[in-house]
């Protein structure tokens, strides 16, 4: 069913997407569209964040109090909801980052020993 598929994709990305969002917010408050653009640009246009994953992820992060939100006006005079990282969010980010680096190292190790 359509919904299940969406859910699966979110779950697949969940750990990393949360980390990417928190990392992006390190540079200052940003709205949803800005976050997706920032991730796209900084990944060299490789990572496309889908709206269907982005907003649920943002709301989930907010519920866990890793980010907070308020309504502001953009440079182009648009009203938008800005998200900013909290202290708890920063801790979470550092933790995620450590785990990610361990994971990369571990997977790299495994892939390195593989005969090519």
């Amino acid at each position: 069913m359509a919904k299940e598929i969406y859910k699966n994709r979110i779950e697949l990305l969940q750990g990393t997407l949360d980390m990417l969002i928190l990392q992006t917010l390190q540079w200052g408050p940003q709205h949803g569209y800005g976050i997706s653009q920032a991730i796209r640009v900084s990944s060299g246009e490789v990572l496309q964040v889908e709206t269907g994953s982005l907003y649920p992820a943002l709301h989930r992060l907010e519920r866990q109090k890793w980010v907070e939100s308020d309504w502001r006006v953009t440079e182009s005079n648009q009203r938008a909801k800005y998200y900013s990282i909290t202290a708890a969010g920063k801790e979470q980010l550092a933790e995620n980052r450590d785990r990610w680096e361990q994971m990369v190292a571990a997977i790299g190790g495994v892939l390195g020993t593989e005969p090519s």
Partner: protein
Amino acid sequence: MRWWRKRSELDAEIEAHIRMAVAERVARGEDEAAVRLEVEREMGNVALVKDVAREAWGWVWLERLLQDLRYALRQLRKSPAFAVTVIATLALGIAAPAAMFTVVDRVMLRPLPYKDADRLVYINDASKRNEHDGRSRAPYLDLQEWRKWNRSFESIGFYTQANGRNFLEGKIATEGVGFYKVSANLFPVLRVAPALGRDFRSDPDSFAKNADEKSLVISDAAWRSMFGGDPGILGQSVKINGEPYIVVGVMPRGFSFPFDPENPEVWTLVQLADADKGRTDETPEYTVLGRLKYGVREAQAEAELMTLQKQIAVGYADTETRQERSGVWLGSYSGSLVEKDAKRALGMLLAASGILWLIACVNVTNLLLARAMVRQREVAVRGALGAGRWRIMQQFMAEGLLLSGCGAVIGLGLALVAVKLFAGGIKHHLPFPVAIVPDWRMIAALLSLTVVSALISSIWPAWMSAHAPIEPALKQGGWQTGAARRQNRMRSALVIVEIALSLTLLVGCGLLLRTIYALRHVPLGFRTDHIIVANLQIPGYKFAGRNMTNNLYLPLLERAKHLPGVQAAGLMSEVPLGTTFNVALTLKGDNTGSRGATKDVSAKLNAASPELQKIFGFKMLAGRFFNEQDTASSEPVIIVNRAFAKAFAPNQSDLNKVIGMELWHITPNKNAHIIGVLDDMRQMTVADPSQPEVEVSVPQITPESGVYKFLEGIAMDLALRTDRDPKEVIPELREVLRQADPALAGSNFTTMDQVVEDSFGSQRLAAHLLEIFGGSALLLCVAGLYGLLAYVVSQRTRELGVRLALGAQRGDLLWLVMRQASVMLVSGVVIGLGLAIASGRVVRSYLYGVSARDGWTLGLVAVTLLVVGLLAAYLPARRAAGVDPMEALRAE
């Protein structure tokens, strides 16, 4: 609501996202309309995005519930007949037991206004083998021994009612009050203290003069009605029957002991006298009330006191008295407040209302099942569109919740109205004023039970259809699947259950109606028409030292006789079937056998005046009734009834021989002769045969005679025969009474017909309620049967059309449906008859003049149910026969 704001915020957020994306691309020089489409495509399913985002909030269940409720409401609005039927059925099913629960709760389960009332028991002397024939109470010396030696009771108190009628002269009014002489520790035994002032000094009871002898504690009701709730009442002197007492305390509101919340009560200390020092027949007796220690059972305490009493009884010098007093029996205090009869009646009615509830639930299950069947296709479509099974079940649950909620609320309302209506009818048989407000815990239990049952019956079909394979249902509408047939069988079974239960209720109802009919046709032995009865509120104390017969009764009778339209007026201690007063007389048997009975004869004693025979039309078996010549100066005379003559006559074959026999002296040194034998009549209740009775002539009762105190100062009924409307005569009569003495104006007035009607007691009440329950049950089961058949016919329209096209006669189709109905009806009736016969034991003790397995009643009820059921079946059957084959087939 926060949630709504958050929801619109999410909308705005997504909208802002889209706008920014579009604005950026437009700034890059792309075409706006095309860009917008492209962005939206990239976004994917916006609604789903929002859904998933919202799920992150954890609020979705509520949102879904609201959605489901809205949807359910829409669905129900589309089929109002279904909704109304379900709601009405549930309302009826809830109202009956809720109303009954309220009453039963008040009467049987409700705690009394004393702390831990379930530990209060009456302690009474009994014979060796614990036979007590309803005898209660005990003399002081016995209870004092119990107090000293027992280990089962925390404390034991006692009291006795002051003789006769008592009047408290208040500041505002003088009223009759219940006047009790109590032991100093009685209120502590009850664990209640005065709300105002103090309790009696808790000196141990002794024979010395008590300091509190003239202290009086009054009930809240007496304080309010007679003293206007004046807090300055404490320390004031008030008069009871002309004797002065000092008010020392006012009991809390709602307190009443012995429990009689309708009437004001006052209490004073009991003063023990020399008479209390003995153990003979003449020793005064007290009602003894003990508080059991925590955890001690009644039987344990009784066993302990039995052993004690065996030793105590040695103190009785007279062997016969000792025999009668060497045992003890206990009776629970709360249990003594409601007559066994009324308790049984309420229990039975509660069971009946429970059956009605069951029928209603079965009916609702059936209706919901039918609805689920109709909606099978809808469920299949929704399943095909991706709805989860759990989600579909949720949906059905919401519908069940909505229906049962509405039913429950309406049912509760109905119950409140019903209790209000019945409160009047019930009052006569119960000591409690039935409060209008039901007990909420009970109602809550009942409600939740109903809601749960409705939910189960709505989820179950939902589960069935949610788990049915989608494909066949979509292909052919699900009509001919095996599951459908199984469900039909299931529904038939439910209808059979309904019919059986209804039949049981109806049989009960029928039997009670027969009982009432039989009671109404018992030959009473006296006339009841055109008689007004006044139960006199006699201020006996004002006539102390004077002859009441000459000073009050005879002049009163004379004046009443001369009221316009009054043909006759008479006095009687208690009119037949009255319930206010009873004096029993035991004549010791004469062992020589020469003069009369060889064994003791216990008889009801009544005073009567000559004109009574004209009023009630008593039939004489032999001899004559009293006449004007029987006065104080003439020869004392006595009239007995047939039952007495039978017990007393030396020769059973010729009862007339008792005439002329001497009985005992009414007046000292003057033996009274029996001058007449009355034919038997109903005295206490319509259902019981006559007890021996002795009547003495009112003018012959003088203060010198031994019975004067009992017969004249306490109870007297004034009976009038008149053709005029009682509503006109009663005020005139009241005025006559007021002139004789102001206190008499407070007498109760009624008619003899009413006295008889009231004496039918709980049977009448039960019959009325059962009529309602039975009628409702019949209605419900007929509705259930009709519903099922109508559904089956609409389901089989196509099949019926095919049959017609293939040459079946319309009569065959009619028969087809009727046959199905008959199978259900006959099986239901057979099972129901079995149930009714099996449950006959429950109602048997309740019936009069009819057996619990009365063939006529069973047969009549069965036939009624069959006929009504067939009528209900005929409508859908005719519709089946009227199917247009062309249309039925074209509908394919």
